[in-house]
């Protein structure tokens, strides 16, 4: 079996992606609606299947033309009107509830909840790429941020009781190539990222921890490995993360790392990847400025282990790990590979 299969089996800490465990207002509103819809449809299910089974048991009879035919009933207008009106009534009630939920989920929260004016919102633009996520941090409260990172979205936890401690997250969604969809079920329903269009969505949660999801619109070969990780950090920790993330890449004094950096900058890596503060400005692949701040590599395909083993495997041959992905293998010599891995491993 494949090596990555064995690795995956070792790491079985369960993750929860259930739409029935919402932790943020849009997902909560949908959850409420879903309960009502499930109850109504469940009721209809029981009634209709009940009648069907009753009829099957009660009226079953082996065919024998000599026994004559049962009484023929051609129809009944009052009955027809009754069973047109009943579903119409149910549809009407459902429609009302749907209108309300639609407003809660897709309405502009800042208009619907005036107290949000006192909050400190985080605004991020998420850009879908074949098969990874780019995040451009725009602003946090009144502060402009303007830095970018990839594949793992960090957001502050919100205190939903105190307006000034609320930290809603507003996402602007764009695509660099084909259609993608942003879906972290416990935070919100999905919203597509469509080339040539700009979409928005929002969420807000008081629960810290990592929430996972994945791209939900088929986007080509590696659609299955375009995973989403949203890390909801306690506010102080989030601000620390921000400060680190918006700084340029760390300069190390370690001679081996400096040498690795030179190897990296001499490779074609720089055409596709960016490391802020160096001459690597590529925009085809994920930003690597603070690569070691991420728990996973390559859109969640690999663990970013501290020893750099997976990083090494990845750079050696991305195509065995994520077949069809847009980073080719370069056939680096072992010593060059060591150097690159050492350098990238220093990018905290």
């Amino acid at each position, binding site marked *: 079996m494949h090596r990555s299969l064995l690795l995956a089996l070792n790491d*079985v800490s369960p993750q929860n992606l259930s739409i029935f465990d919402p932790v943020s207002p849009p997902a909560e509103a949908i959850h409420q609606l879903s309960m009502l819809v499930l109850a109504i449809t469940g009721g209809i299910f029981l009634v209709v299947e009940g009648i069907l089974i009753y009829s099957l048991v009660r009226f079953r009879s082996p065919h024998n033309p000599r026994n004559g035919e049962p009484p023929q009933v*051609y129809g009944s207008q009052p009955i027809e009107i009754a069973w047109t009106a009943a579903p119409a009534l149910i549809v009407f009630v459902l429609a009302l509830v749907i209108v309300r939920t639609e407003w809660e989920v897709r309405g502009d929260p800042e208009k619907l909840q005036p107290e949000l004016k006192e909050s400190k919102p985080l605004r991020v633009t998420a850009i879908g790429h074949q098969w990874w996520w780019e995040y451009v941090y725009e602003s946090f409260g009144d502060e402009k941020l303007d830095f970018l990172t990839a594949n793992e979205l960090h957001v502050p936890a919100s205190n939903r009781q105190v307006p000034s401690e609320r930290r809603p997250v507003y996402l602007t969604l764009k695509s660099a190539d084909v259609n993608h969809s942003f879906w972290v079920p416990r935070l919100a329903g999905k919203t597509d990222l469509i080339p*040539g269009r700009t979409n928005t969505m929002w969420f807000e949660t008081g629960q810290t921890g990592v929430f996972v999801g994945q791209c939900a619109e088929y986007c080509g070969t590696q659609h299955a490995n375009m995973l989403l990780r949203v890390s909801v950090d306690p506010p102080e920790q989030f601000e620390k993360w921000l400060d680190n993330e918006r700084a340029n890449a760390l300069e190390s004094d370690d001679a081996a790392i400096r040498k690795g950096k030179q190897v990296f900058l001499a490779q074609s890596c720089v055409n596709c990847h960016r490391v802020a503060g160096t001459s690597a400005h590529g925009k085809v692949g994920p930003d690597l400025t603070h690569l070691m701040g991420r728990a996973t590599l390559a859109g969640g395909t690999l663990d970013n282990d501290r020893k750099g083993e997976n990083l090494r495997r990845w750079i050696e041959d991305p195509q065995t790990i994520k077949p069809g992905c847009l980073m080719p293998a370069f056939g680096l010599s072992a010593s060059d590979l060591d150097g690159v891995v050492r350098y990238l491993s220093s990018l905290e």
Partner: protein
Amino acid sequence: MSVAEQPRVEAPPWTATLNEWTATVDHKKIGLLYICMSVVFLVVAGVEALLMRWQLIVPRNTFLSPQIFNQMFTMHGTTMVFFVGMPILIGIGNFVVPLQIGARDMAFPRLNALGFWVTLFGGLLVYFSFLTGSAPDFGWFAYAPLTERTFARGPAADFWSLGLIVSGIGTVTAAVNFVATILGMRAPGMRLWKIPFFSWTILWTSVQILLALPPLTAALFMVVFDRQLGAHFFDAQTGGSSFLWQHLFWFFGHPEVYILILPGFGMIAEVIPVFSRKVLFGYEFMAAATMAIVFISMGVWAHHMFCVGMSRTLDLYFAGASLLVSIPTGIKMFNWLATMYGGKLWLASPMLFACGFLSLFLIGGLTGIMLAAAPFDFQLSDSYFVVGHFHWVLIGGTLFATFAGLHYWYPKATGRMLSERIARWQFFLLFVGFIVTFGPMHIAGMLGMPRRIYTYDANRGWDIWNQLATVGGLIQAPSYLLFVYNIIVSLWKGRPAGDNPWDAWTLEWATTSPPPPYNFEEIPTVHSRRPLWDLRHPDDPDWQYE
């Protein structure tokens, strides 16, 4: 008398048989050709499905590469919709409609033959892409810009679009032919509101085909122009709109699902009365409900696009309109149940499949209501829940109804009965296997599993549901093989059927089994929707009550 002088009875040479079937313009033969073609494609697409299910049985499986997996779901979906679902229904319609309305053939027999061959060649054209090294891999709804040159470099996308354009011509000619036949060639006395219910649904299916298919053909031409002539309809980078494709496609795609289900409704509405020994309850309301479904369902297409970020107004309009469709559909359900109620239920194989249809299609309809509740769909859309839902309507609905129809009319077409024993096994394996395959998919979807993924991580709680789904697929597979076996072997081994083995009431049962090329020696005059009932109960004929 010497032996040499005896007249020799020889089987016609195989070339004569071949000639007879390829050059035929007889609606019955063309109908059977459609059905045979669809059954072959059903088996091919079934194999593709099983390959996918085998890949997904354990997390991080490496049985299929992502490229192959993506080709499998694209070809499976495309085949099932365009080369199994539609042609098998058109084929049954072709065989049954002229007989049911007392005509000698379709209105345009040559056009009819053209329609079949064009459909077949369209299917082959799509499959030829395999010979170029790779099949299309962008899913059956082929969202732009995945079909543009930038993302689909090989010729597969061209084969796919051209194949569907070609087979689409076949579908449209069939629809034109049905409309002309049903409007113009009914037996004397058969007013429009006295035609048997199956023919009524075929009429409205044809109307829907004529409304929905041309937009698809136009959109496919736009894809070909983009790829071959450098147009930029769907390329956002150069000022086109990938979003436009979604609207064009679903403007066809949603009516398409009603094209696939309406004839099924028709077959169920034939089978249930005959095997309940009662007249169809509320024909007029059923007929009106069919029309309502056609009209309402032309205006609900963007419920497939709730997640693209439409305005709230549009979201709500499309949610409301979609919910409206459930009212006429409910009317149908209730009328079928009322037909059974108080009858004498004869559970022969067609009725078994019809009851399977009633119990399963209901569930597909209810999960459809969940999806139509727009905000709920923000969670469910493009998840495995949707895969569960549409198989529930396509298999639980269309396919169960189709099997009901095929078991019902097989004696008419061949003069032989199918083996009831095999049919029962087929039914139970399909019923159980189907539920085990597609039930768990709903759960996986609600646990966050998106569709069209070739692999998944072990730690998400999806394993068990995927394992069940694969096991269910393995239970279903022999059911299809039993069906193929049954229809072939019964040609020789089946009990002779006689003209009217089910004691049914519509005109196709008035002629011999199989019917002669001219269908009826003398075109009968009818007075009601159940002419053979009137014949048998002259003291209490139907037309007194209609």
